[in-house]
Structures are given as C-alpha cells and as structure tokens.
C-alpha cells in the first residue's frame, strides 16, 4: 500500500467518524419521532463555535467543551419543546419546514452572536504528526476515533442495557404500544433531541481543530451526516457508523485521485444513488409506509 493511499484512508476514517456521529444523531431523532431533523448540522456548529468562543474568553478547554455540549443539548430540548412538539400531528412537509426554519434561524443567530469568520480550535494534545506506514496521522485524529468509539460503545450500552434506552427503542418500534405499557413517550422524544444535539456538539468540537469551524459549517456537516445515515440505512445505529466511515473514505479517496473541487459533490451523488437504487441503505430494514 502506498503511503499516499494510507494517508487518504486515515483522513477518510477520521472525517468518517465525524459523519458517523452526526448520522447517529439523525437516526436517534428519526427513531423516536420519525422526524428528520434538518437542524442537526447546527448542533455541530454550536459545539465547535461555543468551545472556540468560551476557550477564547479564558475558560479551561475541558470546561468550554462541556459547556458547549450542554448548550447544544439545551438548544435541542428547546427545539423539540417549542417547535416540533406543537406540530406533532402535522404533515411531514410541515415538520420539514419547521426544522429547516430552525436551522436557518440558528445559523443566522450564530452569525450575529459570533461573526462570519473562520475560527481555529487548538488540538487537544499537540500537533506533532505520528508516522504510520509513511503517512502522517494527527494526534487529533486519534482523539476523534477514540471518542467516537467510546460514544458508540456507550450508546450500545444505553440502548441495550438501560431502562431509558430500552424505552426509547420501544417507542421507535411502536409508539402506541410503548405508551400503553407506561412509557412516557413525550419524554422519550425530548430526550432524543437532547441526546442527538449533544452528539452533534461533540462531533463539532472533535473536528474543529482539524477542519476549523465557523457559523456556517453546520450545513455541509449536517447534509453529509444525513447522507451517511441514508447510506447505512436510516434509523440503524451500526448503519450510521458504517455509512459515515464509507462516506468519509469515499470522499478523501475521490478528493485525492479525482478532483478536490468536487469532493463535496461525492457525498451527494452517493446519497442520491442510494436513495434511487437502494432506499433502505446498506443495513436498514425495508421501510413500509402506513396509509
């Protein structure tokens, strides 16, 4: 394997892990509420930008990060409570427009509260690259991969072992039945928004030292996270992770060997291809629409 290929794979897996986190956020909300939250990318932006501005204001990095995740989770809870909950019985088109409105609103607020410049966040532990088979691996990439792995394991434990996680799974399978056995479905919806907002914020913080952050990073990261979720099969946890990694690697390979100008197009071409030819994704079950 040439050093160049290893380099592309390493960068691909790193960015893919970020897409996977965003995709997991999409899937968690989709499972709980059957809503695609178009504002998912904005949580990524809030995570990165809040950390940058709080760290810039003199807060210790770790405290800034925790505050950023909490802020994003609060925004997620507010979004569910104030905008999605009131329109719970509305048609899909209405819900789509509401979450898009929320994403435009949050992006506009970010431009007002902060600015329209690009910001850098210091890497968590230095920037001296580690050499692997002739390719350079940034220490930050290890952080990205490590934290993503930890989160995936934690989610696996949460959904498989805890009562709340099982309640969320039950709600996603059959909302009415879940309600009948005493699960507080509205709370499950609320928690799903808070949880996936927090996941998005973590992704935004992890990637900020590598790709920089700004008021408008949410749109691309959100869309690609969705592309990853669709690729893996919307609503499937392992699918989201697989979709993210496949997308990240496809993107860096095509940027390296085909055209770097069109690297962003790859994600959308892949997404369209999957939607057209394999709508349930790689690991998704067959979707059946209820009349």
């Amino acid at each position, binding site marked *: 394997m040439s050093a160049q290929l290893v380099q592309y794979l390493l960068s691909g897996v790193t960015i893919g892990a970020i897409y996977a986190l965003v995709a997991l956020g999409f899937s968690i909300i989709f499972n709980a509420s059957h*809503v*695609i939250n*178009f504002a998912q990318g904005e949580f990524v932006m809030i995570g990165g930008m809040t950390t940058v501005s709080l760290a810039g204001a003199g807060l210790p990095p770790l405290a800034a990060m925790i505050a950023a995740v909490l802020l994003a989770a609060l925004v997620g809870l507010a979004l569910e409570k104030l*905008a999605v909950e*009131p*329109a719970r019985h*509305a*048609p*899909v*088109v*209405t819900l*789509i*427009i*509401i979450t*898009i*409105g*929320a*994403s*435009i*609103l*949050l*992006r*506009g*607020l970010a*431009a*007002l509260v902060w600015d329209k410049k690009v910001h850098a966040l210091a890497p968590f532990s230095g920037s001296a690259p580690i050499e692997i088979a002739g390719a350079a691996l940034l220490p930050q990439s290890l952080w990205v991969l490590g934290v993503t792995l930890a989160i995936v394991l934690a989610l696996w434990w949460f959904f498989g072992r805890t009562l709340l996680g099982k309640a969320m799974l039950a709600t996603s399978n059959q909302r009415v039945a879940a309600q009948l056995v005493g699960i507080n479905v509205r709370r499950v919806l609320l928690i799903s928004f808070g949880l996936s907002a927090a996941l998005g914020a973590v992704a935004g913080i992890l990637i900020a030292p590598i790709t920089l952050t700004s008021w408008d990073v949410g*749109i691309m990261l959100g*869309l690609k996270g*969705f*592309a990853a979720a*669709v690729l893996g099969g919307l609503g499937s946890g392992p699918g989201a992770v697989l979709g993210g990694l496949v997308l990240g690697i496809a993107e860096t390979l095509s940027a390296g060997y085909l055209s770097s*100008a*069109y690297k*962003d*197009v790859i994600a*959308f*071409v892949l*997404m*369209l291809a999957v*939607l*057209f030819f394999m*709508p349930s994704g790689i690991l998704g079950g067959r979707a059946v*629409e209820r*009349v």
Partner: protein
Amino acid sequence: MRSWLASPRTGGLAALAAVIALLPLGLVNNYFYEVAILVGLNAIVCVGLNLLIGYAGQISLGHAGFFGLGAYGSAILSARFGWPPLAALIAATLTVALLAHVIGRPILRLRGHYLAMATLGMGVILSIVAATEDHWTGGPDGMSVPPFTLFGTSLSGEGAWYSVVGALLVAAVWLSLNLIESPTGRALRALSGSEVAAEVSGIDSARQKLMVFVISAVFASVAGSLTAHYSGFITPSKLSFFHSIELVTMVVFGGMASTYGAVVGAAVLTTLPQLLTVFKDYEMVVFGAIMMGTMIFMPKGLVPSLGRLAGTAVGALRGGKGVR
C-alpha cells in the same frame, strides 16, 4: 356577475391584473420599479413551486437549482456563444424541462423527508458545479449577462421590464389556476391527501407528480433567465441552498395551496429585505423565524388564513353560522 367576480379564476385574475396595472402610480422612482420587477420574477417561481408543494404535496428544496440553471443557461449561451437572448432563454428552458423530466422520475418516487433531502442534494450539486466550472460561469465571482433583446430591439428601462414581467406573472397565475381547476388539479389534490387512495381511484400519480415537477421547474427557469438578463449579472448565490429556502418560505408564508398566496408571499418577502436596510444582518434569522412561526401558528399560510377570517366575518354579518 357576482359569481364571476367571486371565482378565483376570473375575479381574482382581474384583481391581480388591476393591481399590476395600477401599481406604477405608486412606483415613484426606478428603485421602486426594480423592487416590483424582482417581486414579479420571484412570484412567477413561487406560483410554480406552489403547484408542487401546495397542491401536489411534494417538497422541493432545490428549486433555486432550476432557477440558476435557467439563469446560467441564458447567460452562457448569450454571453459566451453570442446567441440572441430569446433563443438562449428558450434553449435553457427546454434543457431544464428535459432535465426535470429525467431526474423527476427517480426523485419523485421518494417521499417526505427523502424527497426533501434528494432535491436538496440535487440543488447543492448544481451550486457546487456553478462555483467550480469558472471558465463557463465565472466561478464564485459570477459573470455578466447581456441585456435582453426581443426581435432586435433591446428591452431596456424599468417600465418596459415591468410590463413584460407583469404580463408574464398574470399568464403564470392564469396557467396555474386553470391547471388546478382541471382534472389534473383534482388528481393532484387527491394524491397530496393520500397517494395510495389516489392510485386506487385510478390516478397515475407518478405521471401527475412528474408533470407538475416539470412545470414548476420551467416557471423557475424562465424567471431565472429573465432575472439574469434584467440584473445583468449572475452569481452562484442564485442557485444556493439559501435561495431555495427563500423560495419555499415565500410559498409557505403566503399560503400553501393558494396561487395568490404564493404571489403575496413573494411580494412580502422580496420587499421586506429591501425596505429594511438593516435587515441584511438579520435576514437569516427573520426567514428562519418566519418559516417556523408560520408552520406552528398559521400552517395554512397568510392568504388562506385571512380568507377564512374574512369568510367568518362575512358569515357573521349575514347572521348565518359562518362559512368554513
């Protein structure tokens, strides 16, 4: 007489034509004309988009793509190849119609969120292409577009543009109203309610959706071509995701499934940023808030809600129970 006036197809159209004919009295300078022309051009797009979103119930988050294709098609053919602008406009429109027909088939098989994301993806791909192929499009800096000529004479001056755009808007509204009243319109409303039920009652929903998709793309493309020629300049922002969102917001705010609502939505949301000079910084916040607010508090949109209010008031005045 009364029923003639009350029918949206005749009475409403006459009212719209009257407003367009009388508006120049209030347009005291070229700037006002400019805003009115932009309103008209956006309204044409929204009337088409409303057919798709409001009547067929299919969302498109990529209509700025068709708008931009029309604009760049006209711009490139007339500026780089020396085509007469009218021929360029027609060629661009036909290309967009063909493209919409080809991609419409697989895209419209998708529903709800998937359709939204697919149209969005399509729009984003187009805008990246426009920003990247700079030897054709001038890249992110944009390109200049020659003025529009009609049979050898150049269309210049705000008054001339106003008349052309006004006439086109009336034509667009007339087409839209006729389509809605036709069997196609009824079929669309049926499939917007329940696609399965529509199919069971014998509606070829795929064909109907595709037709409306192509029509709305054509409306957007024509308006895009004219906008490019009118403003003399075009940048990729015209086919950006945010422009698609602006268009959807206009339709939604004015009132889904209301042709005049689309016109009113375009008028209000095109004029608003022009009126408030400080608005520029708050543009996104305001558009986002309008989208959310309309959907949560007034899901039918401005014009249908006002219409219902007026209907109730009239009913109350007559001492009746009030009309729905």
